[in-house]
C-alpha cells in the first residue's frame, strides 16, 4: 500500500504539493511560535529602565505571548482545514482511480489505509520541510515582534529540541486529521464507478457534508446570539470563533450557493457564447467551484472578521471615552504646568489627572498563602470634586466624595480584582510609607483604564509636579472653547485638544497595538489562503486537460478556452468573497450586540480599505493562476488528449 502511495505521490505531485506546503508552513509556524512563546515565559528586562518602563516591557512580553499562541492555533486550524479541503477535492478528482482499486480487489479498509498512508507520507514530507522553514520563521517572527515594539531589541530565542519533535508530531497529526474524513468518503466509493466514464458525477452534498455544514452553521449562529449578551472579552473570542466556524460552515454548504450564483452571474453579465459556457461550467463543476471558493471564504472571513472586530472595539472604546468625559477640552502637560489652568480666563473646571510614580501593594490570600502584587502604573492623583464634575462614569461601589485624606479608589483596570471598600493598602510614596483605605471603585470599561485614583492632597508636591498629566477642562458659559484653547496654548501648554479629537486619538492609539497583532495574524492567514487558492485552481486546471481539449476540438481557439477558464475562476472568486463577507458580517453583528450592551450604542467599524484590497488581490490571483494553468493545460495538441483514454 505504501508503494502505491509513494508512486501516486510521485506521479500526481501537483495534487499534493499544496497540501505538503500547507503542512510545512503549519509545522514551521507552530515550531517557531512555540520557541518564541517559551522564551517569552522568562522575560529578561534590559537593565537601567524605570519601573514604568519595566512594566511596559513586561506587558509587551505578554502581548507577544498572546500573538504567538494565536499564531500557533491559527496555523494548526488553517493547516487542517486546507489539507482536508485539498484531500476531499483530490478524492473527488481520483474517484475513478479509487473505484478501480476496489474493482481489482481492494477492500474498503485498504482504500482507507491507502489515503491514510498518503497522508502519513504527506505529514512526514511536510514536517521534514517545515522544520528548516521553522528556523527561518523563528527569526522572522522575532524580528517582527521586535520591530512592532512588543519585544525589546535584546530579546533572543534559545533553541529547544522538544519544539522540533512537537512540531513534527503536529505536522503528521494535522495531515492525518485533515485526511480522515476524505478517507472515509473514499472507502464508500463503489467499484462500479470505475466503469462509468463520467465517474466524477457523484453527489456533492453528501450526508456528512450536510451534517457538518449545518452543525457548524448552528454553532456559528449560537455564538452570534451568545455574543449579544457577552462581555467584551467574550465577544472577542466569539468573533474569532464565528469567523472560523462560519468559514467552515460556508465552505461546506457552498455547493448549494454556487448554482444560484451561476444563475445570478448569467443575469448580471449578459451572455456571449463564452460567458454562457463559463456559466454552464460553473454549474456543472459545483464540486470544483466549491473547492476553489472555500479557501477564499476562510481568508475573507478571518481577515475581515478579525480586522472588523478589533477596529469596532477600538471605536467603541473611543466612543465610551467621549461619553464618559463631561468637558470641552483635554490638555496634556506636566503636573506643574497644569496648576496654571484653573486661573486661565474662561476655564470653569480643570480636572487634573497626574500619572504619579508611586507604589501601591495589594495583598491577596490564595490557598492560605498571601501573595503581594505591586502596582506602579495607572495610579492617578485627582481632586475628587473636579474629577466627579468632569467624569460621568458612576462608581460601582462607594462615593467619590469620600476620596480625601489617606484614601484610595480602585479604577476600571482593578475592577476584576474585587478590592472591597474598607481594605487598607500599603503605599510607598517616594520612600515614605503610607496606608490608604479603599473607599470605593469604578466599574469595568471597554478600555483597560486606570488602576487606582488617589487624592492629590495626600501626596507631596514633588510627587505630582513632574508627572505626565491630562486635564479635562470645562469651559465657562459664554466662552468660546476655541478661544479658551488658544489662551491655554499661550500660557505655555502646547497640547490642547477637543474631547472628541482626544477620544478619536485614544481609539487610534489603542488600535495601533491591535494593528500590530493583526498584521502578524493576517499575513499568516493570507499566506495560507493564497496557497490553498492557487493549489485548488492548479488542481482543477490540470485535471481539466481533456475537457479543454474537447472544447478546442469543438471549435474554440486556445485563447478562448483560457478566457472561459478565467471568467469561470473569477466568478468563483467573487462567490468566495461574497460568502466570506457574509461570515465576517455575522461576526460583526455579534460584536455590535456586545458593544451595545456595554456602552448603550452599537458601534461597528467596517474595514473598507482592507476589504477592497482583499477583493482585488484575491480575484487578481485567481484570474492569473487560472489563466496560467489553462494556458499550460491547452499547450498540447487537442487531438492527442481527446483520443487518450488513460
Amino acid at each position, binding site marked *: 500500500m505504501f508503494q502505491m502511495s509513494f*508512486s501516486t505521490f*510521485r*506521479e*500526481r505531485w501537483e495534487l499534493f504539493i499544496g497540501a505538503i506546503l500547507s503542512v510545512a508552513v503549519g509545522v514551521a509556524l507552530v515550531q517557531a511560535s512555540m520557541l518564541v512563546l517559551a522564551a517569552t515565559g522568562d522575560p529578561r528586562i534590559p537593565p537601567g529602565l524605570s519601573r514604568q518602563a519595566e512594566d511596559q516591557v513586561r506587558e509587551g512580553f505578554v502581548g507577544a505571548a498572546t500573538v504567538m499562541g494565536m499564531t500557533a492555533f491559527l496555523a494548526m486550524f488553517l493547516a487542517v482545514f486546507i489539507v482536508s479541503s485539498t484531500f476531499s477535492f483530490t478524492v473527488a478528482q481520483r474517484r475513478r482511480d479509487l473505484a*478501480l482499486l476496489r*474493482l481489482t480487489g481492494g477492500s474498503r479498509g485498504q482504500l482507507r489505509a491507502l489515503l491514510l498512508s498518503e497522508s502519513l507520507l504527506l505529514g512526514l514530507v511536510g514536517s521534514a520541510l517545515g522544520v528548516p522553514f521553522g528556523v527561518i520563521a523563528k527569526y522572522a517572527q522575532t524580528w517582527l515582534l521586535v520591530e512592532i515594539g512588543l519585544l525589546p531589541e535584546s530579546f533572543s530565542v534559545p533553541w529547544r529540541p522538544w519544539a522540533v519533535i512537537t512540531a513534527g508530531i503536529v505536522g503528521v497529526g494535522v495531515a492525518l486529521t485533515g485526511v480522515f474524513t476524505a478517507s472515509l468518503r473514499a472507502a464508500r466509493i463503489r467499484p462500479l464507478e470505475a466503469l462509468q466514464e463520467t465517474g466524477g458525477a457523484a453527489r456533492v452534498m453528501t450526508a456528512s457534508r450536510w451534517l457538518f455544514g449545518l452543525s457548524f452553521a448552528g454553532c456559528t449562529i449560537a455564538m452570534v446570539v451568545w455574543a449579544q449578551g457577552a462581555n467584551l472579552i467574550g465577544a472577542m473570542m466569539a468573533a474569532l470563533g464565528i469567523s472560523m466556524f462560519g468559514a467552515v460552515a460556508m465552505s461546506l454548504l457552498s455547493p448549494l450557493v454556487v448554482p444560484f450564483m451561476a444563475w445570478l452571474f448569467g443575469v448580471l453579465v449578459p451572455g456571449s457564447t463564452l460567458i454562457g459556457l463559463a456559466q454552464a461550467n460553473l454549474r456543472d463543476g459545483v464540486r470544483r467551484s466549491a473547492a476553489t471558493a472555500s479557501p477564499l471564504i476562510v481568508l475573507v472571513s478571518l481577515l475581515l472578521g478579525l480586522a472588523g472586530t478589533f477596529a469596532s472595539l477600538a471605536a467603541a472604546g473611543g466612543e465610551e471615552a467621549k461619553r464618559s468625559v463631561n468637558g470641552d477640552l483635554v490638555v496634556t502637560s506636566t503636573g506643574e504646568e497644569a496648576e496654571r489652568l484653573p486661573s486661565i480666563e474662561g476655564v470653569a473646571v480643570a480636572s487634573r489627572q497626574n500619572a504619579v510614580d508611586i507604589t501601591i501593594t495589594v495583598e491577596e490570600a490564595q490557598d492560605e498563602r498571601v501573595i503581594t502584587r505591586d502596582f506602579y502604573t495607572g495610579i492617578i492623583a485627582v481632586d475628587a470634586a473636579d474629577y466627579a464634575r468632569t467624569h460621568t462614569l458612576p462608581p460601582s461601589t462607594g462615593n467619590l466624595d469620600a476620596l480625601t485624606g489617606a484614601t484610595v479608589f480602585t479604577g476600571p483596570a482593578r475592577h476584576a480584582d474585587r478590592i472591597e471598600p474598607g481594605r487598607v493598602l500599603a503605599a510607598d510614596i517616594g520612600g515614605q510609607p503610607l496606608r490608604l483605605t479603599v473607599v470605593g471603585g469604578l466599574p469595568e470599561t471597554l478600555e483597560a483604564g486606570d488602576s487606582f485614583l488617589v487624592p492629590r492632597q495626600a501626596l507631596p508636591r514633588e510627587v505630582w509636579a513632574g508627572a505626565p498629566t491630562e486635564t479635562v477642562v470645562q469651559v465657562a458659559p459664554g466662552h468660546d472653547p476655541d478661544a479658551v484653547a488658544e489662551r491655554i496654548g499661550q500660557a505655555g501648554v502646547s497640547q490642547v485638544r477637543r474631547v472628541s479629537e482626544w477620544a478619536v486619538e485614544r481609539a487610534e492609539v489603542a488600535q495601533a497595538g491591535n494593528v500590530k497583532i493583526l498584521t502578524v495574524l493576517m499575513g499568516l492567514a493570507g499566506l495560507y489562503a493564497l496557497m490553498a487558492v492557487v493549489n485548488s485552481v492548479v488542481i482543477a486546471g490540470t485535471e481539466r486537460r481533456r475537457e479543454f481539449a474537447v472544447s478546442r476540438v469543438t471549435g474554440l481557439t486556445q485563447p478562448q478556452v483560457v478566457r472561459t477558464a478565467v471568467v469561470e475562476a473569477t466568478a468563483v472568486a467573487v462567490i468566495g468573497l461574497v460568502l466570506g463577507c457574509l461570515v465576517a458580517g455575522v461576526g460583526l453583528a455579534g460584536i455590535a450586540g456586545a458593544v451595545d450592551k456595554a456602552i448603550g450604542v452599537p458601534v461597528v467599524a467596517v474595514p473598507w480599505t482592507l476589504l477592497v484590497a482583499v477583493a482585488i488581490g484575491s480575484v487578481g490571483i485567481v484570474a492569473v493562476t487560472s489563466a496560467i494553468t489553462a494556458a499550460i493545460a491547452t499547450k498540447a495538441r487537442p487531438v492527442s488528449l481527446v483520443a487518450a*483514454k*488513460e
Partner: protein
Amino acid sequence: MSWNQHLGAGHRQGMPPPGYPAVELHQVTRFYGAKNTGVAALDDVSLSCPTGTWTAIMGPSGSGKSTLLHCAAGLDQVTRGRVRLAGRDITAAPDSVLTEMRRRTIGFVFQSFNLISSLTAEQNVAFPSKLAGVRVSKSEVRQVLAGVGLADRAGHRPRELSGGQQQRVAIARAMISRPAVLFADEPTGALDSGSARTVLQLLRTMVETVGQTIVMVTHDPAVAAGADTVVFLTDGRIVDRVDVPTVRDVAERLARLES
C-alpha cells in the same frame, strides 16, 4: 503455449463444484429509478455459462448488456432473482465477500483498459495479488506478461504503451490470480483491428488450453463470433441464442434485432 506453461489447468481459484455452471443468473430483474417512472434494465433474465466456455452477450444500445455483466460479476445488486458465481450465491453477499471474490474468483477486462496510471505494467499486474496479501514473485509476473507478449514492456507505465499493449497488460492483470471467470466488457472496443485480433486470439487460447470461463459483452459480430455461444438481449430480455456462431450469422441476427 505459454498459458499452459504458466497457468496450467487445475489452478483455477474458487472453482465451482462439479456440475455447477461458472455463472448462473436465475430470473434476474434489475430496476433503476422510482417505481412508476423507472426502467427495467434486466427483465426476468436467466442465463447459465458452463465452466470452460466463452459466452458473448450482444444487443442494441440500451438493451441491458452491461447491466447483465455487472450483475453477474457482483458489481451491481439485482432487484429480483438470484445470481450464482463459481457455485456461490452472491445475490445478497456483503461487501467483504464480494471484495474477496474480486481478488480470487473473478477477473475484469474493459474497453478502457483501466490500468493504474501511476504504476508500471509489472506493478499493475502484481497489484491485485498484493491487495489480497498473496506474494507473487517477480519472475511469475514476468512470465504472465511474457504470456501476453509483453516481456520487454514490464517497466513501462500505461501511457508509454499502445492501446493493444495496455489491453494485454489488463488481461495479464486479470489472469495472474487464475480466476474462475473472466468478465470482459468490449475488450477490443478501443483497439485497431490488428491489436483486436491479437487480443481475441489470446482469449481463445485461454479457453482452449486452460479451460478459462469468459463472459464478454460486445457489439462487434466479428468479436462475438470468436465465442462458443452468443446470447442476444433486447429491452432487458434474452431474445435469441447461437451456439458455435459465425460472423455472418451473428451480424444477421443483430441487424434483425436493431431494425
